[in-house]
Protein backbone atom coordinates (compact mmCIF):
# COMPACT_ATOMS: atom_id res chain seq x y z
CA UNK A 1 0.00 0.00 0.00
CA UNK A 2 2.71 2.44 0.98
CA UNK A 3 4.82 1.40 -1.97
CA UNK A 4 1.86 2.14 -4.20
CA UNK A 5 1.43 5.48 -2.48
CA UNK A 6 5.11 6.23 -2.89
CA UNK A 7 5.08 5.37 -6.58
CA UNK A 8 2.00 7.48 -7.11
CA UNK A 9 3.50 10.41 -5.26
CA UNK A 10 6.81 10.11 -7.10
CA UNK A 11 4.93 9.93 -10.38
CA UNK A 12 3.13 13.15 -9.45
CA UNK A 13 6.47 14.75 -8.59
CA UNK A 14 7.87 13.68 -11.93
CA UNK A 15 4.81 15.08 -13.67
CA UNK A 16 5.43 18.31 -11.80
CA UNK A 17 1.94 18.01 -10.42
CA UNK A 18 1.44 20.02 -7.23
CA UNK A 19 -0.87 17.30 -6.06
CA UNK A 20 2.35 15.50 -5.13
CA UNK A 21 2.86 17.91 -2.26
CA UNK A 22 -0.69 17.47 -1.06
CA UNK A 23 -0.40 13.67 -1.18
CA UNK A 24 2.92 13.77 0.64
CA UNK A 25 1.41 15.98 3.28
CA UNK A 26 -1.60 13.72 3.62
CA UNK A 27 0.35 10.50 3.97
CA UNK A 28 3.50 11.53 5.79
CA UNK A 29 2.89 15.02 7.10
CA UNK A 30 2.10 13.99 10.65
CA UNK A 31 5.13 11.76 11.00
CA UNK A 32 7.43 14.37 9.50
CA UNK A 33 6.09 17.08 11.79
CA UNK A 34 6.57 14.77 14.75
CA UNK A 35 10.23 14.21 13.93
CA UNK A 36 10.86 17.90 13.32
CA UNK A 37 9.03 18.88 16.46
CA UNK A 38 11.05 16.40 18.53
CA UNK A 39 14.28 17.92 17.27
CA UNK A 40 13.44 21.60 17.20
CA UNK A 41 11.03 21.57 20.09
CA UNK A 42 8.75 23.98 18.31
CA UNK A 43 5.55 23.46 16.39
CA UNK A 44 6.28 26.42 14.18
CA UNK A 45 9.79 25.28 13.45
CA UNK A 46 8.45 21.82 12.69
CA UNK A 47 6.05 23.26 10.15
CA UNK A 48 8.86 25.26 8.60
CA UNK A 49 11.03 22.16 8.45
CA UNK A 50 8.28 20.26 6.67
CA UNK A 51 7.87 23.04 4.13
CA UNK A 52 11.61 23.15 3.55
CA UNK A 53 11.68 19.40 3.04
CA UNK A 54 8.78 19.58 0.57
CA UNK A 55 10.55 22.24 -1.39
CA UNK A 56 13.76 20.24 -1.44
CA UNK A 57 11.91 17.16 -2.66
CA UNK A 58 10.11 19.18 -5.34
CA UNK A 59 13.43 20.45 -6.61
CA UNK A 60 15.17 17.08 -6.39
CA UNK A 61 12.52 14.86 -7.98
CA UNK A 62 13.20 14.47 -10.79
CA UNK A 63 16.00 13.67 -11.52
CA UNK A 64 16.17 11.79 -8.20
CA UNK A 65 13.85 8.85 -7.80
CA UNK A 66 13.97 7.64 -4.22
CA UNK A 67 13.25 3.97 -3.63
CA UNK A 68 11.58 4.68 -0.32
CA UNK A 69 9.83 8.01 -0.45
CA UNK A 70 8.83 8.06 3.19
CA UNK A 71 12.37 7.51 4.43
CA UNK A 72 13.57 10.02 1.88
CA UNK A 73 11.12 12.68 3.04
CA UNK A 74 11.78 11.94 6.70
CA UNK A 75 15.49 12.33 6.11
CA UNK A 76 14.92 15.70 4.43
CA UNK A 77 12.76 16.85 7.32
CA UNK A 78 15.26 15.63 9.88
CA UNK A 79 18.16 17.39 8.19
CA UNK A 80 16.13 20.58 8.00
CA UNK A 81 15.26 20.28 11.66
CA UNK A 82 18.88 19.70 12.63
CA UNK A 83 19.92 22.75 10.61
CA UNK A 84 17.29 24.81 12.33
CA UNK A 85 18.33 23.40 15.69
CA UNK A 86 21.96 24.27 15.05
CA UNK A 87 21.06 27.80 14.04
CA UNK A 88 18.94 28.32 17.09
CA UNK A 89 21.57 26.76 19.36
CA UNK A 90 24.30 28.97 17.93
CA UNK A 91 22.24 32.09 18.35
CA UNK A 92 21.22 31.41 21.93
CA UNK A 93 24.51 29.94 23.13
CA UNK A 94 22.56 28.31 25.85
CA UNK A 95 21.04 25.07 26.77
CA UNK A 96 19.37 23.52 23.81
CA UNK A 97 15.70 23.02 23.62
CA UNK A 98 16.08 19.48 22.47
CA UNK A 99 17.71 18.34 25.66
CA UNK A 100 16.74 14.72 25.28
CA UNK A 101 18.38 12.60 22.66
CA UNK A 102 21.31 14.90 21.94
CA UNK A 103 22.16 15.11 25.62
CA UNK A 104 22.16 11.37 25.78
CA UNK A 105 24.40 11.17 22.74
CA UNK A 106 26.74 13.62 24.45
CA UNK A 107 27.48 10.82 26.92
CA UNK A 108 29.27 8.87 24.25
CA UNK A 109 30.16 11.55 21.70
CA UNK A 110 32.54 14.08 23.17
CA UNK A 111 31.98 17.71 22.26
CA UNK A 112 34.46 18.57 19.59
CA UNK A 113 34.74 20.21 16.26
CA UNK A 114 31.71 20.37 14.04
CA UNK A 115 33.95 19.70 11.11
CA UNK A 116 34.28 16.08 10.26
CA UNK A 117 35.94 14.78 7.16
CA UNK A 118 33.78 13.17 4.55
CA UNK A 119 35.67 9.89 4.82
CA UNK A 120 35.34 9.88 8.57
CA UNK A 121 31.61 10.51 8.29
CA UNK A 122 31.27 7.50 6.05
CA UNK A 123 33.25 5.36 8.44
CA UNK A 124 31.13 6.45 11.38
CA UNK A 125 27.96 5.80 9.46
CA UNK A 126 29.18 2.36 8.44
CA UNK A 127 30.15 1.52 11.99
CA UNK A 128 26.81 2.65 13.40
CA UNK A 129 24.96 0.77 10.69
CA UNK A 130 26.92 -2.38 11.41
CA UNK A 131 26.29 -1.98 15.10
CA UNK A 132 22.56 -1.60 14.58
CA UNK A 133 22.38 -4.53 12.22
CA UNK A 134 23.71 -6.79 14.94
CA UNK A 135 21.02 -5.77 17.36
CA UNK A 136 17.71 -7.53 17.80
CA UNK A 137 15.01 -5.74 15.89
CA UNK A 138 13.28 -4.38 18.93
CA UNK A 139 16.43 -2.83 20.31
CA UNK A 140 17.35 -1.51 16.88
CA UNK A 141 13.96 0.09 16.44
CA UNK A 142 14.17 1.53 19.91
CA UNK A 143 17.56 3.05 19.18
CA UNK A 144 16.52 4.49 15.83
CA UNK A 145 13.30 5.80 17.27
CA UNK A 146 15.17 7.56 20.02
CA UNK A 147 18.20 8.93 18.18
CA UNK A 148 16.92 9.25 14.65
CA UNK A 149 13.29 10.19 15.19
CA UNK A 150 14.09 11.87 18.53
CA UNK A 151 10.98 10.36 20.05
CA UNK A 152 10.66 11.06 23.76
CA UNK A 153 10.90 8.35 26.40
CA UNK A 154 7.25 8.30 27.37
CA UNK A 155 6.16 7.83 23.79
CA UNK A 156 8.72 5.08 23.32
CA UNK A 157 7.46 3.29 26.41
CA UNK A 158 3.93 3.35 25.10
CA UNK A 159 5.02 2.47 21.59
CA UNK A 160 7.15 -0.51 22.60
CA UNK A 161 4.97 -1.55 25.54
CA UNK A 162 7.76 -1.13 28.02
CA UNK A 163 8.09 0.82 31.20
CA UNK A 164 9.86 4.15 30.94
CA UNK A 165 12.57 2.88 33.24
CA UNK A 166 13.06 -0.14 31.08
CA UNK A 167 13.38 2.06 28.03
CA UNK A 168 15.98 4.22 29.74
CA UNK A 169 18.00 1.26 30.90
CA UNK A 170 17.89 -0.35 27.49
CA UNK A 171 18.97 2.84 25.76
CA UNK A 172 21.75 3.37 28.25
CA UNK A 173 23.13 -0.09 27.59
CA UNK A 174 22.86 0.43 23.84
CA UNK A 175 24.78 3.69 24.09
CA UNK A 176 27.56 2.00 26.01
CA UNK A 177 27.76 -0.75 23.49
CA UNK A 178 27.80 1.74 20.63
CA UNK A 179 30.57 3.67 22.30
CA UNK A 180 32.59 0.51 22.70
CA UNK A 181 32.00 -0.36 19.06
CA UNK A 182 33.10 3.06 17.85
CA UNK A 183 36.14 3.02 20.10
CA UNK A 184 37.07 -0.38 18.79
CA UNK A 185 36.97 1.06 15.28
CA UNK A 186 39.10 3.97 16.40
CA UNK A 187 36.38 6.48 15.59
CA UNK A 188 36.16 8.01 19.04
Amino acid sequence: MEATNDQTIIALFEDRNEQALAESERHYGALCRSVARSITGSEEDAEECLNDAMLTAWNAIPPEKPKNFRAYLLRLVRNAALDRYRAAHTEKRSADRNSGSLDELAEIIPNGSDVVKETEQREILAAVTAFLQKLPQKQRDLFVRRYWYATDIAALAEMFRMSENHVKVTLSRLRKRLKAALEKEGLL
Partner: protein
Amino acid sequence: MNPLKFSEIISDLPDEMIESAAEPRRKSFPYHILTAAAAGIIMVIAAAIYPKLRMQIPPVTAPPAVTDSAVTASETQTAAAATSQTVSTNTTATDDTASGSASTVSPQQTHTTVSRTESAGVRTETTAAIPPNTELPLETVPYTSTLQKASADTAVFDGTTTMDMIPCVETEHDTTSSAEDKPTSLTESTTVNAYPPDEEETTALKEEECISYQTLTVPVWSKPNGKIPETLPQRNDAECGYEMWSEEQLRAFFGADAPPEEYCETDYDFLAIHCCAPTPDMLILYINLTQIPRCTVMYDLTAADYMNHETVFVIPVPKVLHIDPSAIATSFWPVEADGLFDAYPTNRTDIYYTEQAQN
Protein backbone atom coordinates in the same frame (compact mmCIF):
# COMPACT_ATOMS: atom_id res chain seq x y z
CA MET B 1 32.72 15.59 16.32
CA ASN B 2 29.85 16.49 18.61
CA PRO B 3 26.43 14.99 19.28
CA LEU B 4 24.74 17.21 16.74
CA LYS B 5 27.20 16.23 14.06
CA PHE B 6 26.83 12.61 15.00
CA SER B 7 23.07 13.02 14.72
CA GLU B 8 23.50 14.47 11.25
CA ILE B 9 25.75 11.62 10.23
CA ILE B 10 23.26 8.98 11.23
CA SER B 11 20.62 10.70 9.13
CA ASP B 12 21.89 8.52 6.31
CA LEU B 13 21.08 5.26 8.04
CA PRO B 14 19.60 2.71 5.66
CA ASP B 15 15.99 3.21 4.66
CA GLU B 16 15.10 -0.21 6.03
CA MET B 17 16.05 0.77 9.55
CA ILE B 18 14.12 4.00 9.34
CA GLU B 19 11.10 2.24 7.90
CA SER B 20 11.26 -0.49 10.50
CA ALA B 21 11.33 1.98 13.33
CA ALA B 22 8.56 4.10 11.83
CA GLU B 23 5.84 1.74 12.98
CA PRO B 24 7.33 -0.62 15.51
CA ARG B 25 4.01 -1.68 16.98
CA ARG B 26 2.92 -3.10 13.70
CA LYS B 27 5.65 -5.70 13.98
CA SER B 28 4.87 -6.85 17.45
CA PHE B 29 4.16 -10.54 17.47
CA PRO B 30 1.15 -11.78 19.40
CA TYR B 31 3.12 -13.99 21.72
CA HIS B 32 0.20 -14.41 24.07
CA ILE B 33 -1.71 -16.20 21.35
CA LEU B 34 1.21 -18.51 20.74
CA THR B 35 1.52 -19.22 24.45
CA ALA B 36 -2.14 -19.98 24.81
CA ALA B 37 -2.07 -22.27 21.79
CA ALA B 38 0.94 -24.16 23.13
CA ALA B 39 -0.67 -24.56 26.52
CA GLY B 40 -3.81 -25.90 24.91
CA ILE B 41 -1.89 -28.42 22.84
CA ILE B 42 0.03 -29.61 25.89
CA MET B 43 -3.16 -30.05 27.87
CA VAL B 44 -4.77 -32.04 25.09
CA ILE B 45 -1.73 -34.28 24.78
CA ALA B 46 -1.51 -34.74 28.52
CA ALA B 47 -5.17 -35.60 28.77
CA ALA B 48 -4.76 -38.19 26.05
CA ILE B 49 -1.55 -39.78 27.27
CA TYR B 50 -1.72 -39.61 31.04
CA PRO B 51 -4.39 -42.28 31.50
CA LYS B 52 -2.38 -44.64 29.34
CA LEU B 53 0.76 -43.97 31.31
CA ARG B 54 -1.03 -44.74 34.50
CA MET B 55 -2.13 -48.05 33.12
CA GLN B 56 1.46 -48.99 32.37
CA ILE B 57 2.71 -48.97 35.94
CA PRO B 58 3.89 -52.50 36.59
CA PRO B 59 2.08 -54.23 39.41
CA VAL B 60 3.99 -55.03 42.55
CA THR B 61 3.82 -58.71 43.22
CA ALA B 62 4.86 -60.79 46.12
CA PRO B 63 8.43 -62.07 46.04
CA PRO B 64 8.89 -65.60 44.86
CA ALA B 65 9.28 -68.23 47.46
CA VAL B 66 12.83 -69.15 48.24
CA THR B 67 13.61 -72.71 48.94
CA ASP B 68 16.28 -73.76 51.32
CA SER B 69 17.12 -76.77 49.31
CA ALA B 70 20.60 -77.82 48.62
CA VAL B 71 22.56 -75.48 46.53
CA THR B 72 23.92 -76.56 43.26
CA ALA B 73 27.36 -75.86 42.06
CA SER B 74 26.10 -73.13 39.87
CA GLU B 75 25.14 -71.05 42.87
CA THR B 76 28.61 -71.16 44.21
CA GLN B 77 30.01 -70.33 40.84
CA THR B 78 27.69 -67.41 40.55
CA ALA B 79 28.80 -66.07 43.86
CA ALA B 80 32.35 -66.42 42.78
CA ALA B 81 31.55 -64.36 39.74
CA ALA B 82 30.11 -61.67 41.88
CA THR B 83 33.32 -61.28 43.77
CA SER B 84 35.61 -61.75 40.86
CA GLN B 85 34.54 -58.45 39.37
CA THR B 86 36.46 -56.52 41.90
CA VAL B 87 38.63 -59.01 43.64
CA SER B 88 41.33 -61.19 42.32
CA THR B 89 40.15 -63.52 39.64
CA ASN B 90 42.13 -66.32 41.11
CA THR B 91 39.46 -68.04 43.02
CA THR B 92 40.77 -69.72 46.08
CA ALA B 93 39.66 -73.19 46.74
CA THR B 94 37.53 -73.61 49.77
CA ASP B 95 36.67 -76.39 52.01
CA ASP B 96 33.48 -75.44 53.60
CA THR B 97 33.42 -76.98 56.98
CA ALA B 98 29.97 -75.71 57.66
CA SER B 99 28.42 -77.87 55.04
CA GLY B 100 30.73 -80.72 55.69
CA SER B 101 30.81 -81.90 52.16
CA ALA B 102 32.91 -80.68 49.35
CA SER B 103 34.20 -82.13 46.20
CA THR B 104 36.86 -81.23 43.77
CA VAL B 105 36.08 -80.24 40.27
CA SER B 106 37.97 -81.82 37.49
CA PRO B 107 41.12 -79.85 36.76
CA GLN B 108 40.34 -79.82 33.07
CA GLN B 109 36.96 -78.29 33.58
CA THR B 110 36.51 -74.62 32.94
CA HIS B 111 33.60 -73.01 34.60
CA THR B 112 31.77 -70.10 33.19
CA THR B 113 29.94 -68.09 35.71
CA VAL B 114 27.19 -65.72 35.04
CA SER B 115 26.21 -62.67 36.95
CA ARG B 116 23.12 -60.75 36.20
CA THR B 117 22.19 -57.19 36.51
CA GLU B 118 18.72 -56.04 36.02
CA SER B 119 17.74 -52.46 35.69
CA ALA B 120 14.43 -51.08 34.53
CA GLY B 121 13.40 -54.44 33.27
CA VAL B 122 16.51 -54.88 31.16
CA ARG B 123 18.73 -57.67 32.23
CA THR B 124 22.37 -57.85 31.36
CA GLU B 125 24.60 -60.76 31.94
CA THR B 126 28.32 -60.77 32.39
CA THR B 127 30.36 -63.86 32.34
CA ALA B 128 33.58 -64.62 34.05
CA ALA B 129 35.68 -67.64 33.49
CA ILE B 130 37.08 -69.50 36.42
CA PRO B 131 40.38 -71.01 35.51
CA PRO B 132 40.79 -74.73 35.56
CA ASN B 133 42.49 -76.44 38.43
CA THR B 134 40.17 -74.60 40.73
CA GLU B 135 38.49 -76.42 43.44
CA LEU B 136 34.94 -75.35 43.88
CA PRO B 137 32.68 -76.37 46.71
CA LEU B 138 29.72 -78.11 45.34
CA GLU B 139 27.62 -77.80 48.38
CA THR B 140 27.56 -74.97 50.77
CA VAL B 141 25.16 -72.82 52.65
CA PRO B 142 23.05 -71.01 50.15
CA TYR B 143 24.02 -67.53 51.11
CA THR B 144 22.95 -66.16 47.79
CA SER B 145 19.48 -67.46 48.07
CA THR B 146 19.32 -66.44 51.67
CA LEU B 147 20.34 -62.97 50.80
CA GLN B 148 17.71 -62.80 48.18
CA LYS B 149 15.19 -63.79 50.71
CA ALA B 150 16.45 -61.29 53.19
CA SER B 151 16.24 -58.50 50.73
CA ALA B 152 12.83 -59.59 49.72
CA ASP B 153 11.67 -59.54 53.27
CA THR B 154 13.16 -56.09 53.76
CA ALA B 155 13.25 -56.67 57.44
CA VAL B 156 13.91 -53.77 59.72
CA PHE B 157 17.07 -54.76 61.37
CA ASP B 158 18.96 -53.76 64.45
CA GLY B 159 22.44 -53.00 63.28
CA THR B 160 24.06 -53.19 66.68
CA THR B 161 22.94 -56.72 67.10
CA THR B 162 24.12 -57.50 63.66
CA MET B 163 27.55 -56.23 64.39
CA ASP B 164 27.71 -58.39 67.44
CA MET B 165 26.82 -61.37 65.39
CA ILE B 166 29.75 -60.84 63.09
CA PRO B 167 32.22 -63.44 64.18
CA CYS B 168 35.44 -62.28 65.63
CA VAL B 169 37.84 -64.41 63.75
CA GLU B 170 41.40 -64.86 64.61
CA THR B 171 43.17 -64.67 61.38
CA GLU B 172 46.61 -65.79 60.52
CA HIS B 173 46.94 -63.07 58.04
CA ASP B 174 50.25 -61.32 58.04
CA THR B 175 49.34 -57.87 59.15
CA THR B 176 52.74 -56.42 58.48
CA SER B 177 52.39 -56.91 54.79
CA SER B 178 49.14 -55.12 54.54
CA ALA B 179 48.16 -51.54 54.66
CA GLU B 180 50.35 -49.16 56.53
CA ASP B 181 49.23 -47.22 59.50
CA LYS B 182 47.56 -44.05 58.51
CA PRO B 183 45.94 -42.89 61.66
CA THR B 184 43.36 -40.22 61.41
CA SER B 185 43.86 -39.90 57.72
CA LEU B 186 41.08 -39.44 55.31
CA THR B 187 41.69 -42.32 53.04
CA GLU B 188 39.98 -42.12 49.77
CA SER B 189 39.55 -45.70 48.97
CA THR B 190 38.70 -47.11 45.71
CA THR B 191 35.45 -47.83 44.16
CA VAL B 192 32.45 -48.95 46.00
CA ASN B 193 30.28 -50.89 43.75
CA ALA B 194 26.73 -51.58 44.46
CA TYR B 195 25.56 -54.34 42.28
CA PRO B 196 23.05 -57.06 42.64
CA PRO B 197 23.67 -60.24 44.42
CA ASP B 198 23.68 -63.04 41.98
CA GLU B 199 21.20 -65.74 42.03
CA GLU B 200 21.43 -69.21 40.82
CA GLU B 201 21.46 -69.65 37.14
CA THR B 202 18.46 -71.84 37.10
CA THR B 203 16.31 -69.28 38.81
CA ALA B 204 14.62 -67.11 36.26
CA LEU B 205 13.80 -63.63 37.39
CA LYS B 206 10.29 -62.68 36.59
CA GLU B 207 9.60 -59.38 34.94
CA GLU B 208 7.30 -58.25 37.67
CA GLU B 209 9.93 -58.65 40.33
CA CYS B 210 11.31 -55.30 39.29
CA ILE B 211 14.45 -55.48 41.34
CA SER B 212 16.27 -52.25 41.00
CA TYR B 213 19.98 -52.44 41.36
CA GLN B 214 22.29 -49.53 41.41
CA THR B 215 25.88 -49.33 40.36
CA LEU B 216 27.71 -46.64 42.23
CA THR B 217 31.26 -45.43 42.40
CA VAL B 218 31.91 -43.62 45.61
CA PRO B 219 34.89 -43.36 47.90
CA VAL B 220 35.13 -44.95 51.28
CA TRP B 221 36.87 -43.21 54.10
CA SER B 222 38.09 -45.01 57.12
CA LYS B 223 39.78 -43.99 60.32
CA PRO B 224 42.09 -45.20 61.60
CA ASN B 225 43.43 -47.25 58.79
CA GLY B 226 45.72 -49.71 60.40
CA LYS B 227 46.58 -53.18 61.39
CA ILE B 228 44.44 -55.63 63.15
CA PRO B 229 45.76 -55.62 66.68
CA GLU B 230 47.04 -58.69 68.43
CA THR B 231 44.42 -58.42 71.07
CA LEU B 232 40.91 -57.95 69.93
CA PRO B 233 38.99 -55.85 72.35
CA GLN B 234 35.36 -55.59 71.60
CA ARG B 235 33.38 -52.48 71.48
CA ASN B 236 30.44 -52.00 73.60
CA ASP B 237 27.17 -52.65 71.97
CA ALA B 238 26.32 -49.02 72.15
CA GLU B 239 29.44 -48.12 70.25
CA CYS B 240 28.86 -50.44 67.35
CA GLY B 241 26.54 -50.21 64.48
CA TYR B 242 25.88 -47.50 62.00
CA GLU B 243 24.28 -44.18 61.70
CA MET B 244 23.71 -41.50 59.16
CA TRP B 245 26.09 -38.60 59.53
CA SER B 246 25.72 -35.06 58.43
CA GLU B 247 28.55 -33.17 56.80
CA GLU B 248 29.27 -31.50 60.11
CA GLN B 249 29.63 -34.81 61.89
CA LEU B 250 31.86 -36.04 59.11
CA ARG B 251 34.10 -33.00 59.44
CA ALA B 252 34.19 -33.31 63.18
CA PHE B 253 35.52 -36.82 62.86
CA PHE B 254 37.77 -36.69 59.83
CA GLY B 255 38.76 -33.07 59.83
CA ALA B 256 38.03 -30.06 57.74
CA ASP B 257 38.82 -31.79 54.47
CA ALA B 258 35.96 -34.20 54.72
CA PRO B 259 33.97 -34.74 52.75
CA PRO B 260 35.54 -33.86 49.40
CA GLU B 261 33.91 -30.99 47.65
CA GLU B 262 31.98 -33.12 45.23
CA TYR B 263 30.13 -34.71 48.11
CA CYS B 264 29.38 -31.48 49.88
CA GLU B 265 26.29 -31.01 47.86
CA THR B 266 23.00 -32.06 49.21
CA ASP B 267 22.84 -35.18 47.09
CA TYR B 268 24.54 -37.42 49.60
CA ASP B 269 24.01 -38.79 53.03
CA PHE B 270 26.90 -40.35 54.83
CA LEU B 271 26.61 -43.80 56.28
CA ALA B 272 29.08 -44.14 59.13
CA ILE B 273 29.74 -47.68 60.25
CA HIS B 274 31.41 -48.36 63.55
CA CYS B 275 33.07 -51.73 63.51
CA CYS B 276 32.73 -53.87 66.54
CA ALA B 277 35.20 -56.48 65.56
CA PRO B 278 38.15 -56.69 63.26
CA THR B 279 37.13 -57.25 59.72
CA PRO B 280 39.22 -58.41 56.84
CA ASP B 281 40.57 -56.11 54.25
CA MET B 282 38.09 -57.15 51.69
CA LEU B 283 34.49 -57.32 52.44
CA ILE B 284 31.16 -56.66 51.02
CA LEU B 285 28.57 -54.62 52.68
CA TYR B 286 24.98 -55.30 52.02
CA ILE B 287 22.48 -52.61 52.63
CA ASN B 288 18.86 -53.38 52.55
CA LEU B 289 16.88 -50.51 51.27
CA THR B 290 13.72 -50.90 53.16
CA GLN B 291 12.04 -48.07 51.38
CA ILE B 292 12.62 -49.71 48.05
CA PRO B 293 10.99 -53.08 48.23
CA ARG B 294 13.11 -55.98 47.20
CA CYS B 295 16.16 -53.91 46.62
CA THR B 296 19.54 -54.68 48.06
CA VAL B 297 22.60 -52.61 47.44
CA MET B 298 25.84 -54.43 47.76
CA TYR B 299 28.92 -52.30 48.28
CA ASP B 300 32.19 -53.93 47.57
CA LEU B 301 34.76 -52.40 49.85
CA THR B 302 37.75 -53.82 48.12
CA ALA B 303 40.28 -51.31 49.32
CA ALA B 304 39.08 -50.45 52.74
CA ASP B 305 42.26 -51.95 54.17
CA TYR B 306 42.23 -53.45 57.55
CA MET B 307 39.65 -52.20 59.88
CA ASN B 308 40.08 -52.81 63.53
CA HIS B 309 37.76 -52.32 66.36
CA GLU B 310 38.27 -48.59 66.29
CA THR B 311 37.62 -48.20 62.65
CA VAL B 312 34.83 -46.04 61.46
CA PHE B 313 34.35 -45.95 57.80
CA VAL B 314 32.00 -43.75 55.92
CA ILE B 315 30.23 -44.31 52.67
CA PRO B 316 28.54 -41.48 50.87
CA VAL B 317 25.15 -42.75 49.95
CA PRO B 318 23.20 -40.98 47.26
CA LYS B 319 20.01 -39.64 48.64
CA VAL B 320 18.25 -40.89 45.58
CA LEU B 321 18.44 -44.35 47.08
CA HIS B 322 16.14 -43.21 49.86
CA ILE B 323 17.90 -45.12 52.56
CA ASP B 324 16.04 -44.83 55.77
CA PRO B 325 18.69 -44.59 58.47
CA SER B 326 16.33 -45.94 61.08
CA ALA B 327 15.57 -49.05 59.11
CA ILE B 328 18.80 -49.87 57.46
CA ALA B 329 20.15 -53.35 57.57
CA THR B 330 23.74 -54.11 56.80
CA SER B 331 25.99 -57.04 56.96
CA PHE B 332 29.64 -57.62 56.27
CA TRP B 333 30.55 -60.42 54.06
CA PRO B 334 34.21 -61.15 53.76
CA VAL B 335 35.43 -62.61 50.55
CA GLU B 336 38.55 -64.48 49.75
CA ALA B 337 41.73 -62.54 50.03
CA ASP B 338 45.17 -63.63 51.04
CA GLY B 339 44.18 -66.58 53.08
CA LEU B 340 41.32 -64.93 54.84
CA PHE B 341 39.02 -67.07 52.86
CA ASP B 342 39.86 -70.05 54.96
CA ALA B 343 39.48 -68.21 58.16
CA TYR B 344 36.26 -66.65 57.11
CA PRO B 345 33.81 -69.03 55.59
CA THR B 346 32.33 -67.00 52.88
CA ASN B 347 28.83 -67.50 54.05
CA ARG B 348 29.33 -67.23 57.76
CA THR B 349 28.65 -63.60 58.34
CA ASP B 350 25.92 -63.54 55.87
CA ILE B 351 24.19 -66.44 57.50
CA TYR B 352 24.23 -64.66 60.77
CA TYR B 353 22.90 -61.60 59.14
CA THR B 354 20.14 -63.19 57.22
CA GLU B 355 19.04 -65.38 60.05
CA GLN B 356 18.93 -62.43 62.31
CA ALA B 357 17.13 -60.41 59.73
CA GLN B 358 14.50 -63.04 59.33
CA ASN B 359 14.06 -63.32 63.03
